[in-house]
């Protein structure tokens, strides 16, 4: 299949391109940018006039709920949601049931994903056996099976010695470790940011120092082990400042933020709306502004969907009892564009946060449109709007704090390895 994407505005942050260029694809790869290779005859021409042609998005945290939680979502439902949102590469956290701590599970997941032929799936291996935080998982075996990095997901790692040894071991083998900084003893019982809103609503708080204390521990251990660490879901202003300082110091750390944290704060919880029950919790407006500033100056490398589909019943509970999580794959592009428009960030810089930068965190060849490389493409209409409704979401998780929002940025075409996997032409 040879595809010619014609007349669009090509934005490829990694190669510094933001110009009207045609894109030519053959045999799953990009074969021409601006001009076709000699003898190119397209089987299909996609009209991209007025549209942006960008690399497919790379998402650093998408829970596909397989194996173990198929009542919440399936690989197929969520990968359809991904490509509908322009996301072509997914990093999958290991907190499935059973957790991804055995090569067989990883191989099965990769195989299942491959047979669906939608997005590329990169599993993260469990850092500790069964994510219990006690024994190291068999990292080398898991890496052979296809794990790109190791993570504890949201599971607590209460023991600093285990963390230290895990980082040492990962460094020995040359693996990256992904950690969500939350001190479990401080985060365990809380369900909302420990501040005025939680006090008013009588919700148990998670203090901001649950994040900074954990960050201080992690950074101290990175300093001695030299392990490449990716910090997941920053949520506090102080946390952003610590990561900024760590990068200045030259520590090998990267960081991401969930798209909902870029836009929302604890005030949005309103009267106990369980759609806003998230981990880490939505924090103050001041924290949110610091996250946005960190994203703009590169302290935070990437925006991720933090996609966590939850079944309806698990949200129809009092706030503290509701299951945390939100569906995000279909919104991450639009929410990144919204941030860019509000913060006056150029489109290419904003798209870098969801394409080239997360690809660099993963250490994979993705998130760009270089000639000879895989043709994962997202073609979207930056001016078209859509309304976020449960019916409009393809994900099995209909829960998102953005229900009712009117967002700009509608994905028209998504290509994965040169195959058109999603198509939604303008009506």
């Amino acid at each position, binding site marked *: 299949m040879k595809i010619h994407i014609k007349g669009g505005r090509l934005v490829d942050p990694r190669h510094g391109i933001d110009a009207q260029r045609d894109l030519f694809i053959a045999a799953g790869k990009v074969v021409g940018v601006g001009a076709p290779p000699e003898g190119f005859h397209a089987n299909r021409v996609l009209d991209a006039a007025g549209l942006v042609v960008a690399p497919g998005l790379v998402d650093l945290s998408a829970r596909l709920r397989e194996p173990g939680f198929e009542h919440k979502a399936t690989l197929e439902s969520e990968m359809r949601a991904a490509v509908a949102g322009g996301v072509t590469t997914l990093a999958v956290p290991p907190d499935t049931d059973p957790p991804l701590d055995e090569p067989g599970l990883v191989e099965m997941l990769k195989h299942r994903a491959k047979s669906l032929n939608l997005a590329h799936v990169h599993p993260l291996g469990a850092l500790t056996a069964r994510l219990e935080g006690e024994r190291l998982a068999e990292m080398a075996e898991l890496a052979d099976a296809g794990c790109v990095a190791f993570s504890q997901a949201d599971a607590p790692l209460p023991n600093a010695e285990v963390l230290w040894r895990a980082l040492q071991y990962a460094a020995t083998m040359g693996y990256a470790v992904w950690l969500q900084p939350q001190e479990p003893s401080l985060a365990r019982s809380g369900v909302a940011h420990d501040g005025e809103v939680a006090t008013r609503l009588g919700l148990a708080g998670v203090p901001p120092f649950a994040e900074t204390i954990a960050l201080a521990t992690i950074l101290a251990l990175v300093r001695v082990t030299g392990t490449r660490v990716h910090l997941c879901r920053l949520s506090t202003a102080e946390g952003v400042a610590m990561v900024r300082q760590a990068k200045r110091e030259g520590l090998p750390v990267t960081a991401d933020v969930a798209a909902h944290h870029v836009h929302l704060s604890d005030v949005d919880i309103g009267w*106990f709306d369980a759609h806003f029950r998230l981990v880490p919790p939505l924090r103050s407006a001041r924290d949110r502004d610091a996250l946005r500033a960190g994203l703009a100056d590169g302290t935070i490398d990437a925006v991720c969907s933090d996609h966590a589909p939850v079944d309806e019943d698990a949200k129809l509970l009092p706030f503290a009892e509701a299951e945390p999580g939100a569906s995000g794959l279909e919104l991450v592009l639009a929410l990144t564009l919204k941030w860019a428009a509000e913060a006056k960030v150029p489109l290419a810089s904003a798209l870098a946060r969801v394409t080239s930068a997360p690809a660099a965190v993963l250490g994979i060849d993705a998130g760009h449109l270089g000639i000879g490389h895989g043709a994962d493409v997202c073609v979207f209409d930056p001016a078209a709007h859509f309304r976020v409704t449960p019916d409009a979401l393809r994900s099995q998780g209909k829960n998102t704090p953005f229900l009712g929002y009117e967002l700009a940025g509608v994905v028209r075409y998504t290509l994965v390895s040169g195959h058109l996997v999603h198509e939604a032409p303008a009506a």
Partner: protein
Amino acid sequence: MRNPQLNAKGELRHLLTIEGLPREILVHILDTAKSFLGVTEREVKKVPLLRGKSVFNLFFEPSTRTRTTFEIAAKRLSADVVNLAIATSSQTKGETLLDTVDNLSAMHADMFVVRHAASGAPFLIASHVKPHVHVVNAGDGRHAHPTQGLLDAYTIRHYKKDFGRLAVAIVGDILHSRVARSLIHALTTLGAPDVRVIGPQTLLPTGVERLGVSVHHDMAAGLRDVDVVVMLRLQNERMRGPLLPSAGEFFKAYGLTPEKLALAKPDAIVMHPGPMNRGVEIDSTVADGAQAVILPQVTFGIAVRMAVMSILAGASS
């Protein structure tokens, strides 16, 4: 954001929290309660305002006192009352909160009086019930206990007449107290200029001063010249552990003794939402003393609950 307790006409449809309610509604409830106080003293203690209506007391958390006062209030309004203690029945069989509510709605409940251990549970129920059904929050987690806040306000008005010059001290475990939160909102809405919370840092929630109160850690300083002292119950499970070393040490610093009460105004009243822990937060001499109005609080509580239920039943759906 629309207040979920009010209907489109601004009438009270549910009572979920005092926060955000207009002053006029609070005053109307207190005035209505006053008119019911006469009923509770009559030989035939009944009025027909809720005749033919079914009130379901839906208690997901054990309670004797509050449930009983709601039951008496509903019966004095001539309602049919059904008491359900859910902690021991269907919830343990996996039925969800809303399933339970649906089932009871099918039995033609007109009003749910809800107590639940999770903050916000009555809001979830209120957002789910049919338009003619009313929800009264009888205590949700640490969040709110609005009828208690109103009966406290009623008691204060009864003894002190005017809120405009009052200094009120609320003492003890503010962190876990829905009573404190509701009273704070009632007092600030009714115009009390000086509301103080007194307790150790470990029992004060973050940013409590943003609710419009001043914060004191020294009880003597906090009690100076107050008109009203509200003592809160200290839950047994808080008396040791990371928040407090012991009940004895708490009593030394924050227990109300005659000596400490002497720092308040001479005519200060002492309140307690009950049940009291004598010797933990309050000395028996004070609890049984001339300044205590703890038993009148209970009597007023019935009138206030009658007022709330009759006003809700009168709101258009």
